[in-house]
C-alpha cells in the first residue's frame, strides 16, 4: 500500500482506539453487560418459583409481541433527535437548543424516570402476578433496566459540567464496565459448566443475543428490526402463532401510518410560538389536527417527515417476517441450520449500524484524498480498510459466541476459544468465516454506493431518509447477507458454501469497481 495511506490508516487506527476509550463507548458496553447480566441473573436463579415462571414459553412469547411494539416506539423517539429544529426544542421543554448541559439533564431525567418505572413495575406488579402477559413485561423491563442503568451512568457523568468531575465520571464508567465484565464472565462460566442447563436456556440466550444490541444501537428504523427480531425469535422459539399476530398488527399499523401520512402531507411546520404555548398543531387553517400528547406528536412528526420511508421499512419488514413463517413451521430439517447464518446476518446488520460507517462522514476528507496522485483502488482500500476489518472481527466474535452457545459446541468456555475455532473449521462451519469478509465488503460497497448516488440526486431530507432505508434494506438484506447466508446454510455442505463464497466475492469485486467509478465522478 502507498506509504501515505499506510500512515493515514495507522493514525486512524490509533484514533479509533482512543475513541474506544470514550465515555460513550464504554457506557454502551456497560449497558450491554448490565443488560445481559440482568437476564443471566434471572436464569441463574431459575429454580426460584417466581423466576422459573419467567422462562416458560408462555411468558417468552408475549415478549416478542412487546419487543415489536417497543422497538417501534423506540424508533420514533430515536428519530426525534434534531438539534437544529428550535420548535422541537420547545417541545422537549428546553427552549432554543443552545445548551448541551440542559439537554443532557433532560435525557438523564427521562432515563431516571424510565428506570424508576421499571423498578416500580418489578416490585409492585410483577411479584404479585402470575399472569404471563405481565410477567413478560417484567422480563422485558429487566432487560431494559440494564440499558437504563448504563444510560444513567453516562448521563450522570455528562450532567457534571465541571472539568474536575471528568476523572470521576470516567472512573465510574470504568468501574461499571469492570463489574459488568467480571459478573458476566463469572456467571457464564458457572452456568455453562452445568451440562443440561445449556439446552434449557437456548431461548433465553437467543433473546439476549438478539435483543440487547437492539437496545444499544438506538435504532431509528425500529419496525424493520423489530420484524427481523420477531422473525428470528419466533423461529428460535418454534412458534408461528405469534408471528401471525405480529404480522396482523404490522399490517394494521401500516394502514394507520398511510392514512395519517396522507393527512400530514398537506401540513405545515408548527410555529415556535405554538410550541411555547404548549399547543402542537399540524395542517393549515381549516385542516388542522391538534396533537397535544407529546408521544403522539413525536410519532406524527416522524411520519410527516418520512412517510414513504416508514412505509417502505414496514413493508420490507413484513416481507421478511412473512418469509420466516413457513420456516418456523418446521421443527427440524435443513432450516434449523438457518439460525446461525441468520443470527450472523442480524448481528452483521446491527453491527454495521453500531459502527455506522459510510462515506458521508468522510466527505470532506474524501475531497482531500481525491486530490492525491493515487489510483482509485488505493483510495478505496484505504477508505474501507478499518470499517471492513472491524466489522469482520466483530462478526467473527459474534459467530464464535453464537456457535459457542450452540449445543453442538457447548464446551466453548471449557475447551477454550481456539479449540472451538479449530472444531468449527473441521466441520465446515468455519467456511462461513470466509464468507463474512466478502459479505461485509459487499455490504459496505452497496451502502456507500447508494449514499454516493443518493447524495446528489435527492434533495429533501425526507428523500434522503427514504434513501437511507432503501440502502439498509436493499444493500444489506436484499443484496448481501441473507441470500448468501441462506445459500450456505441451505446446502449445509462444503460445495454449497464454496459456491456462496465465490458468488459473494464476484459481487464484492464488481461492486468495488462500481463504487470506485461513482466515487471518482462524484461532485463533492
Amino acid at each position: 500500500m502507498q506509504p501515505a495511506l499506510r500512515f493515514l490508516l495507522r493514525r486512524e487506527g490509533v484514533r479509533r482506539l482512543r475513541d474506544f476509550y470514550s465515555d460513550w463507548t464504554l457506557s454502551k458496553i456497560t449497558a450491554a453487560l448490565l443488560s445481559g447480566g440482568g437476564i443471566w441473573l434471572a436464569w441463574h436463579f431459575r429454580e426460584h418459583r417466581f423466576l422459573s415462571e419467567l422462562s416458560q414459553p408462555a411468558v417468552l412469547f408475549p415478549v416478542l409481541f412487546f419487543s415489536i411494539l417497543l422497538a417501534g416506539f423506540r424508533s420514533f423517539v430515536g428519530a426525534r433527535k434534531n438539534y437544529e429544529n428550535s420548535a422541537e426544542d420547545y417541545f422537549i421543554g428546553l427552549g432554543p437548543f443552545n445548551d448541551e448541559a440542559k439537554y443532557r439533564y433532560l435525557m438523564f431525567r427521562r432515563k431516571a424516570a424510565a428506570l424508576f418505572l421499571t423498578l416500580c413495575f418489578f416490585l409492585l406488579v410483577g411479584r404479585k402476578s402470575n399472569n404471563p402477559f405481565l410477567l413478560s413485561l417484567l422480563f422485558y423491563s429487566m432487560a431494559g433496566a440494564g440499558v437504563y442503568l448504563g444510560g444513567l451512568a453516562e448521563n450522570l457523568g455528562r450532567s457534571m459540567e465541571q472539568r474536575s468531575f471528568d476523572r470521576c465520571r470516567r472512573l465510574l464508567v470504568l468501574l461499571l464496565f469492570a463489574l459488568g465484565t467480571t459478573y458476566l464472565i463469572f456467571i457464564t462460566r458457572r452456568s455453562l459448566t452445568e451440562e443440561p442447563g445449556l439446552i434449557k436456556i437456548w431461548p433465553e440466550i437467543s433473546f439476549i443475543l438478539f435483543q440487547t444490541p437492539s437496545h444499544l444501537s438506538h435504532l431509528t428504523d425500529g419496525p424493520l428490526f423489530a420484524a427481523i427480531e420477531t422473525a428470528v425469535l419466533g423461529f428460535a422459539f418454534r412458534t408461528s402463532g405469534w408471528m401471525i399476530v405480529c404480522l396482523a398488527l404490522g399490517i394494521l399499523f401500516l394502514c394507520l401510518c398511510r392514512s395519517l401520512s396522507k393527512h400530514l402531507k398537506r401540513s405545515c411546520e408548527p410555529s415556535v410560538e405554538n410550541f411555547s404555548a404548549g399547543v402542537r398543531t399540524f395542517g393549515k387553517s381549516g385542516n388542522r389536527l391538534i396533537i397535544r400528547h407529546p408521544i403522539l406528536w413525536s410519532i406524527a412528526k416522524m411520519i410527516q417527515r418520512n412517510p414513504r420511508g416508514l412505509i417502505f421499512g414496514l413493508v420490507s419488514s413484513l416481507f421478511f417476517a412473512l418469509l420466516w413463517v413457513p420456516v418456523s413451521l418446521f421443527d427440524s430439517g435443513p432450516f434449523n441450520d438457518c439460525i446461525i447464518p441468520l443470527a450472523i446476518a442480524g448481528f452483521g446488520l446491527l453491527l454495521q449500524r453500531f459502527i455506522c460507517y459510510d462515506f458521508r462522514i468522510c466527505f470532506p476528507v474524501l475531497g482531500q484524498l481525491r486530490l492525491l496522485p493515487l489510483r482509485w483502488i488505493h483510495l478505496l482500500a484505504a477508505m474501507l480498510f478499518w470499517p471492513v476489518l472491524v466489522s469482520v472481527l466483530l462478526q467473527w466474535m459474534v459467530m464464535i459466541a453464537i456457535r459457542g452457545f450452540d449445543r453442538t459446541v457447548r464446551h466453548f468456555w471449557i475447551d477454550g476459544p481456539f479449540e472451538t475455532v479449530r472444531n468449527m473449521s473441521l466441520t465446515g462451519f468455519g467456511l462461513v468465516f470466509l464468507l463474512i469478509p466478502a459479505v461485509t465488503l459487499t455490504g459496505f460497497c452497496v451502502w456507500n454506493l447508494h449514499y454516493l448516488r443518493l447524495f446528489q440526486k435527492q434533495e429533501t431530507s425526507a428523500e434522503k431518509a427514504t434513501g437511507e432505508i432503501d440502502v439498509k434494506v436493499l444493500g444489506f438484506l436484499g443484496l448481501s447477507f441473507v441470500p448468501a447466508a441462506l445459500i450456505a446454510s441451505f446446502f449445509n455442505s462444503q460445495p454449497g458454501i464454496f459456491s456462496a463464497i465465490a458468488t459473494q466475492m464476484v459481487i464484492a469485486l464488481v461492486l468495488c469497481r462500481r463504487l470506485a467509478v461513482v466515487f471518482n465522478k462524484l461532485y463533492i
Partner: protein
Amino acid sequence: METGNEKSACVEVCRLTKKYGTRYAVKDLSFSVASGEIFGIAGTNGAGKSTTLRALIGLIPINEGSLLVLGKDVFLHPLECRQNVAYIPELLNPFPFLTVWEHLQFTALAYNIKSSDEEFSTLLQTMELLDRANQLASTLSRGMLQKMFFACALLRKPSVIIFDEPFTGLDPKGIRLVKGMLREAARAGTGILICSHLLPLLEEVCERVLILDQGQNLACGRIDELRLNQGLPNNATLEELFFNLVEAREKADLCNLL
C-alpha cells in the same frame, strides 16, 4: 486565447464548458497561466470561479473543452496533474485525526518528497504555526488552517498552485505573509492561480486577472490593459473596472431581453 506571452504556459484552459443540469456554470471559457505568473479570477457569487478551479484539478467532470496542466490533459493524465498541482480549496477540511506536523508528514509521503524535520520546522516557523505543530488540525482556526494547507502546498514545491479564496479568514499579518509567500513562489517559477472576492488584494498581487460573470469571460488580461480597453482612467481600481464590466453586461442582457 489570452496567454502569458513571455513564459511557457503551465495551465491552459480551452473552451471549457461545465453544466449543472441545464444551467451553465462555465461556458466557453479560455485562458492560460504562465509559469511564474500570479493569475487572478474575480467574479460574483455563482460566476463559476470555484467550478473552474475544481475542474482544473480534475475533481469534477466537464462537458466540453480541454484542460491542460504542463501540457498534459487533466482527465487523461490525472495522476501526473495532481502530482504537479497543489490545490487549496475554499472549504478547508483537514484530516480530523492528524496534527499539523502529521499533515506535513502525510503530504511528504503522499507526494514522495524527501524532507527532514528541520524543513518542516522552518516551514511552520515561517507560517507562524510552530507552536501549534502538535495540535490536531481540526482544532485550528480558519486562518491557521489556511496557513497550514499553504505550508503543505509549499512543501511539495509544485509547478502550479491553485488557491481558492486565499485571503479569507486571515488576519492582516496573515494576509501579508500569504501575499509574500505567493510572490516568492511565483519568483521561483510556480504558476499561481487564485480566485477571490477581495478585489483590492487581487489587484495588488496578480499580474493578470480574469473577470467572470455567469460563467463567461467578461475580460482577461493585465489590469492596465483592461482599464484602457474600457476607457477608464489610469487610477481606476479593479473594483471600478469590475463593476463597469458587470453593469455593461447586465445592460446588454436587458437590451437583448427587450
